[in-house]
């Protein structure tokens, strides 16, 4: 194709310009809408694309709206929850595991359910306990308290933590165990239970 023929501005030359109807409309896809036939062809194509697009988009968009709905849902676990009584936690510095019972909303269901677990620990004479979540900040496994070494151990990827929840290196976990707000009211221990993103250096609350 050393010498390409000059571009033909108005459709195929074999068809007389201005002849209405017929297959002319289709062939003028790339031509500017300067002749009536080409203009008509352009209108037909545009309409076909627009109408075709609309009939496809409406179901797709309605589906997308529902599909994205979870993004605006918040975790049901974020209020102050009663975990146990102060009597149940001696001030001996040993962490004890407690289940956190919360109102649990799962789509259309609402129930009171254990939503997770925390380790509470009270040093001698301390009024307010320290509260650590039992979920490993590395990948979300359940951390165990190991009494002989007085430390926390994660059974999944070997993360270990001191009794305060600090990292013992080397550890796959990017951060220390997550502490949670904890208060004592009328001899009851209340915890602001939250879930956090795992695998991040900073503790970020899952909303």
């Amino acid at each position: 194709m050393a010498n390409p023929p000059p571009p033909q501005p108005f459709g195929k030359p074999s068809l007389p310009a201005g002849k209405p109807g017929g297959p002319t409309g289709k062939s003028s896809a790339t031509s500017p809408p300067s002749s009536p036939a080409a203009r008509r062809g352009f209108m037909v194509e545009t309409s076909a694309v627009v109408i075709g697009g609309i009939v496809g988009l409406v179901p797709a968009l309605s589906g997308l709206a529902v599909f994205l709905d979870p993004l605006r849902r918040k975790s049901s676990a974020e209020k102050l929850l009663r975990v146990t009584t102060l009597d149940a936690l001696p001030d001996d510095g040993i962490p004890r595991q407690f289940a956190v019972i919360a109102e649990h909303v799962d789509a259309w269901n609402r129930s009171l359910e254990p939503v997770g677990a925390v380790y509470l620990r009270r040093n001698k004479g301390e009024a307010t306990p320290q509260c650590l979540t039992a979920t490993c900040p590395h990948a979300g496994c359940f951390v165990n308290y190991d009494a002989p070494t007085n430390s926390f151990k994660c059974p999944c990827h070997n993360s270990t933590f001191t009794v305060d929840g600090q990292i013992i290196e080397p550890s796959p976990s990017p951060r220390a165990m997550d502490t949670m707000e904890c208060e004592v009211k009328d001899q009851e221990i209340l915890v602001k239970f939250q879930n956090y993103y795992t695998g991040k250096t900073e503790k970020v609350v899952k909303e």
Partner: protein
Amino acid sequence: MKALIDWLDSRTGVRDLVHEALYERIPGGSRWRYVWGSTLVFAFVTQVITGVFLWMCYSPSAQTAWESVYFIQYQMSGGWLLRGLHHFMAQAMVVLMALHLMQVVIDGAYRAPREVNFWLGLILMQIVLGLSLTGYLLPWDQKGYWATRVATNLLSIVPLVGPQLQQLVVGGADYGHLTLTRFFALHAGVLPGLLVFFLIIHVALFRRHGICTKKPERCPEMSFWPDQVLKDAVACLAVLIVVLLLVVHPLNLFMSSGGAGHAVSPLGAELGAPADSSNQYAAARPEWYFLFLFQFLKLFEGWGEQGELLGAIVIPGAVMAALFLMPLIGRWNLGHRFNIGLLFILLAGIGWLTTAAVNEDYRAKWTSDTFAEVAQVVAEIGTDPEKIASHFGNDTEKIQQFTTQLAAYEKYTKSKDYLQAVKGAEREAERIVTLASSPERIPPTGAITLLRDDPKTQGPRLFALNCASCHTFTPAASGTEEPAPAKRSTAADLAGFASRPWIAGLLNPEKIAGPEYFGNTAHREGEMAGFVKETLAGWPAEEVQNAVMALSAEAKLKSQAAADQTDAARIEAGRKLIADGDRCASCHKFHEAGELGSAPDLTDYGSREWLTGMIDDPRHKRFYREANDRMPAFAEFPHDPAKNMLSARTIALIVDWLRGEWYEPAADEPAEAKAPVEPSAAEKPAADQPPVAAPAEAAPAAGK
């Protein structure tokens, strides 16, 4: 017949179609090495067929997913076979995919003009892996639930959109109904649809370019039909036989990740206990063919967030990119060799990581070394480096040696913990199937309610949590977890409480002040201990035994029901002894005899109601009053339950567990999924119990 075909052909061109499909040219003749693609198509078709039938019985929601899979597996005829086929064919598909990829790369079938088809193959591979990842969650059992949690948590570390991406995949902030509906839609709709779409193009392009023949050609050209079709069919049959063997053979213990095996039925795919977000599951592992990724992540210990990103996303992504580039790399002179080298390095890496992961989990099983010496040192001084140094007198060589041993010991204990978690999970899976198969069936709130309300499952946990800091419990009951033994018991051992052997021990002058009873309490030198040692020792053995039987009968233990009936006469004699104002009733109240005030009430001693009252408030006038020794009142405020340390439900679970009251299928009940009934603690007296235990043991058998 011919007329019918002619008619059809003139309207559809069916002859050309069949010809096109069957008479593809194969230069060099049919060969076994060409079968892999066909076996993959066969595996996929099997998955579609079995999947559609499973679909007809499956119900994706947090309350029905496990339940419907349980029903398929244990109640529907042939359900285990259908599920087993689907489960193991999925695994076979991964293996076949690896073989197909190897064959394509080794034969250089990715070279022009087949680059696009190679890329389509890699896309198909991603879809198949996506199918297995989504399918793993659908039974909603502990293993699938926790493994999927870890996998989707990894999504959240994707830069910028990670958290949103995770929330979209999970279907909200928490795992639940919408996670299942989404995964199921992906598993049964979106991914198979995409797979079919790409598979059609993949096969069409394969036909367009023809088969990539292996040189030198050994035979003259043949057509696909019938020689190659026969070879393909034989290969498919071989795949099917292997899969069927896995379905019916206990070998699949090794194939299923976690090695948890089959709790109840040795047939078909494993089904763990239902998912429970609050119940720790330390044995969560991905499917075996993803184990290498799981292990790969561990290599990035101490790298922080970047390490996670690198290990979970960047490097696997780069490896996939390298695979995609193979057709381009293959153009260079040494490119093909480079590609083959790369493939084998990858496969070797995957093999090594998988072996390492399995070895880490199972090493405790495979070694005879129990590290007794190291364990003793650790128990004495802990793992603090300074303390270790001083323990070995700062001898560098010894410290070095010990540190090496310590590392091995730590790996050993980790593996042991894992194996124990697997065992616990197995026991729980077995138990839930027993409960679900009971005539009561599963309540609408789901199978998880059965486990949460089951004393046999919850008792040991609740005891460990609330009672074991003072009380011991030996022998440990056959629950899911053994209660951690108290470091030094400060109260009575409660195994078999109120059973004949237990009461016989209490009334044994040599035992009452021992650690199993009052030895570590304020009652060690109390009136009861004095009475047993001085007065009771003088009673005729027959009378003591009658009293033991009578008091134990008050508890109305399930395990002693038959014995209590057989020994009615001796129990009656024993009751008279207890009610005698000069004997027990001089301090204790016993039905109409005696008075409250100086010692615990013996009326209904050890019954459900008695034990509940004792745990609620041991200082109550019915029990120990001010003589109560350190035992807390766990439910002191009957009218204000929020103030109590334990809920009524928790106490009821502990009481029922201590009394051995939980559902067990009757021996003659034709349960499809009957678990072996382990003897309860109450039925399992310690070896050193007095002879009075003998009639109690013999009677239940005789009474039946």
